[in-house]
């Protein structure tokens, strides 16, 4: 750590604004869409893809960004990378306004679009990497080191000489993730990085991202429709719907606002009529086994004690609420309100 002092003095005021590496204040994106209503005639309509969103992400955080189709996730990521210019509000990444200084910011961010590749389609994977090396002006030693690490962790060795168009979806995704990281970005945005991957590939990608965040300290923001990604990777989750931020906090907190229920599964000595007990209700009976639902926020211990006092209890287990169910209920509530 002998270079530590050098680094310290490089913290310029223009560079890092406190702890917030990414900061959005009332950011909006409105698309004008024209709909044809007849020959040469069209109707203008405005789609508010992102509607006054504010949040901040600190350096080194790993955040999940979820929401139903069309919620505005990809649009947010495109604004964070400078692809799209916000229609309103203020947005800063590493102190830079992305749409104004897109190329300068490009050196400091990595992007993976699950839906499309950033690699050169007709060329072998390694050619894309070599080009990144030069284009990003990555010092040779760092390039070699980063490439080696990615090749090892993402198991790319066999694929380096294969043209990108011949790679399978999962292989291409791993190739894309490596490409986004060769230049040591401070933040990595992933828009649906696990879309269409099988269980094993998903696990590999997750493991890699966890490693990246823990070892390299890279800030990660990822969108996904697979809540397992979030459960396994992110302590913090943001839920967006119709362009509005509905929730921002720890994953566990979602249960509370989702008014979810936990399930207590009890095995009794023999078949009995449904258990009658305060603050829980039987949802299913199967022979001597019964399922009881109770509020997630409530402790299970007193409930268990009460049942044990009145019934011949053999075994029991508690099931956490299904996060997927929680979120879909959240989406649904918003839609009806």
């Amino acid at each position, binding site marked *: 750590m002998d270079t530590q002092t050098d680094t310290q003095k490089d913290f310029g005021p223009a560079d890092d604004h406190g702890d917030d590496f990414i900061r959005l204040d009332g950011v909006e994106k409105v698309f004008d869409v024209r709909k044809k209503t007849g020959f040469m005639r069209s109707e203008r309509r405005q789609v508010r893809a992102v509607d006054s969103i504010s949040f901040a992400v600190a350096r080194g955080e790993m955040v999940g960004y979820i929401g139903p189709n*069309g919620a505005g996730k*990809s649009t947010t990521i495109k604004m964070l990378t400078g692809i799209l210019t916000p229609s309103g509000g203020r947005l800063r990444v590493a102190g830079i306004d992305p749409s104004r200084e897109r190329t*300068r910011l490009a050196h400091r961010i990595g992007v993976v679009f699950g839906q499309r590749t950033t690699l*050169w389609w007709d060329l072998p994977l390694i*050619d894309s990497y070599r080009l990144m090396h030069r*284009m990003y002006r990555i010092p040779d030693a760092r390039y070699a080191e980063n490439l080696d690490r990615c090749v090892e962790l993402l198991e790319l060795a066999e694929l380096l000489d294969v043209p990108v168009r011949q790679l399978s979806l999962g292989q291409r995704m791993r190739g894309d993730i490596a490409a986004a990281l060769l230049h040591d970005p401070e933040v990595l945005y992933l828009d649906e990085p696990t879309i269409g991957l099988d269980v094993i590939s998903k696990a590999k990608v997750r493991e890699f991202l966890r490693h990246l965040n823990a070892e*390299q*300290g890279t800030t990660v923001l990822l969108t996904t429709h697979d809540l397992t990604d979030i459960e396994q990777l992110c302590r913090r989750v943001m839920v967006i719907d119709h362009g509005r931020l509905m929730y921002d906090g720890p994953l566990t907190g979602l249960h509370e606002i989702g008014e979810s229920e936990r399930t207590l599964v009890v095995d009794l000595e023999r078949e009995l009529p449904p258990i009658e007990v305060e603050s829980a209700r039987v949802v299913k009976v199967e022979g001597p086994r019964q399922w009881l639902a109770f509020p997630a926020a409530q402790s299970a211990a007193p409930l268990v004690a009460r049942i044990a006092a009145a019934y011949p209890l053999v075994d029991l287990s508690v099931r956490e609420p299904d996060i997927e169910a929680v979120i879909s209920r959240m989406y649904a509530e918003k839609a009806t309100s």
Partner: protein
Amino acid sequence: MADLQAQERHDAHRGFPPTGRSRVVDGLRAYRLIAWMWIRSTMAYRASFAMTVFGNFAGTALDFVAILLMFSRVDELGGYSLGEVAFLYGLSSAAFGLTDLALGSVDRLGQRVRDGTLDTLLVRPAPVLAQVAADRFALRRLGRITQGLLVLGYALVVVDISWTPLKVLMMPVMVVSGAAIFASVFVAGAAFQFVAQDASQVQNSFTYGGTTLLQYPPTVFAKDLVRGVTFVVPLAFVNWVPALYVLDLPYPLDLPEWVAFLPPLVAVVCCALSGVAWRAGLRSYRSTGS
């Protein structure tokens, strides 16, 4: 700890982001890198590379064969001899060939806008135009330049030009400014494709159509067309206007003599305008919904 290490690594890059450096230099550098990658990948198959260069050469030379066939029937075309037509043809093909080599890929921009793959170029630290232009850089396009220069060489041998130092100087200047004028048409056409994504045919009619037009003497076309090509889309400054000065032939429109020396200026103005158009186009880019 991890944070500090990360910070340290990022500081290593801090000198690199090209803040003060001109975008042109950046663009040229990116262009060179991408073009070189494509050259290397096509050179891997030398035999097929040689074939495609030859194919391009032969394909574009057919245009001149058409002119030769015409002259087997007549002695003059619009008052021009074969050598004089070859002079126009050679200049137009050489200038267009240079542009086609450098920017031939930009007409695929509309496709990229429509399917949203332009997104991936926008997240890289290099000007988008350079990335679009260098994409699929193909040396086979040298074929067109070669045949243009050969025809021009033939014209210089057979046409009796009364050379002055000024006329000699005008030769390379014509090819370079002609290429720049064509380049501005390519870029403006690409900029238009941000708005109308199916406009690549419109663009082609101005570029490929334009070069074919300029291969013939202006006297064979209607005056209104010549006016349009002189004052609206100033392709006439690629070869017609300056070349007729070199050949000591009259221009069908009544223009003062000094107009013959305008091509470099016209090229600069056109490039500036198309640059503005490109920026406006890029600003209007709004990606796609998926």
